[in-house]
């Protein structure tokens, strides 16, 4: 088992390196990385996953996400109304400004075209790698993701 794990880690590393070599300039947040500056948003949104930067998605997406926090990607992430209102407005105010909003309005960062393009084949492996577990786990590979720096892969 240990050998298997070590092998899978090795393959991930190789995959990552291959990806690094293959990828040219980045799109999306990578070029204008920001951090979550609101302390309440940072604390609440980082309880189960990294506090994703508002600039990952347009306001329409955040509105959709905040419309039902009690069913947040398969989990109850409900907040007291006051906290929710504060965080919601922070995300909307600092949202990405896209020229056109696709329909249906996207709510998964991991399904955005630039995301799938950049993560490529690695995306499938990531879910199986016990060290990563989920594509939502940015910091597993991007150590400084919370500081808005994703160019370290």
């Amino acid at each position: 088992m240990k050998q298997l794990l070590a092998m899978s880690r090795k393959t991930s590393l190789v995959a990552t390196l291959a990806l690094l070599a293959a990828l040219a300039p980045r799109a999306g947040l990578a070029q204008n990385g920001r951090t979550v500056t609101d302390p309440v948003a940072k604390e609440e949104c980082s309880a189960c996953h990294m506090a994703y930067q508002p600039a990952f998605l347009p306001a329409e997406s955040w509105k959709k996400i905040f419309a039902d926090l009690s069913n947040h990607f398969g989990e109850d992430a409900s907040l007291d109304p006051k906290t929710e209102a504060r965080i919601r407005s922070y995300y909307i105010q600092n949202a990405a400004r896209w020229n056109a909003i696709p329909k249906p309005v996207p709510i998964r960062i991991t399904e955005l075209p630039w995301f799938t393009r950049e993560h490529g084949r690695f995306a499938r492996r990531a879910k199986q790698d016990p060290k990563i577990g989920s594509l939502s786990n940015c910091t597993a590979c991007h150590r400084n993701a919370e500081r808005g720096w994703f160019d370290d892969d």
Partner: protein
Amino acid sequence: MKAVHDTRVSTSRRLRGPVLGGLVLAATAAALSLVQPANAGPREQIIAGYAAKAGKPLSAARGKAFFMGTHKGGKPDTPSCTSCHTRNVHQWGRTRAGKPIAPMAVSKTPDRFTDPKKVEKWFRRNCRTVLGRECTPLEKGDVLTWLSSQ
């Protein structure tokens, strides 16, 4: 030479204040913790609150069974507390998004269950996620009783 000496003296004087203050604070805290009965900590108060609402004695064994059990009515990915916390409460768990969760066992994470608001918030969310409903005071009290003994 003299100037250097003077600087040293004033530095040590400047330091003495805060250091003494810290010592006094620490001593006061230690004395207070001695005066207070062992049962009056925030965690014990939270558990006592659930016991009072439950209206019957809490049980660590029942809490363990509840925590380890597979439940119905919740979200499909998380049928049990152990879905994220694992079956070993002395070890780190992991959220579905991959973030580590500190061990639930109080012996491993001593500040667990000391903030009533936090305790209520996570019972509310996680019970809805796992059971599709809020937990009863008895269930909460049982689980905390068990985890406090771990």
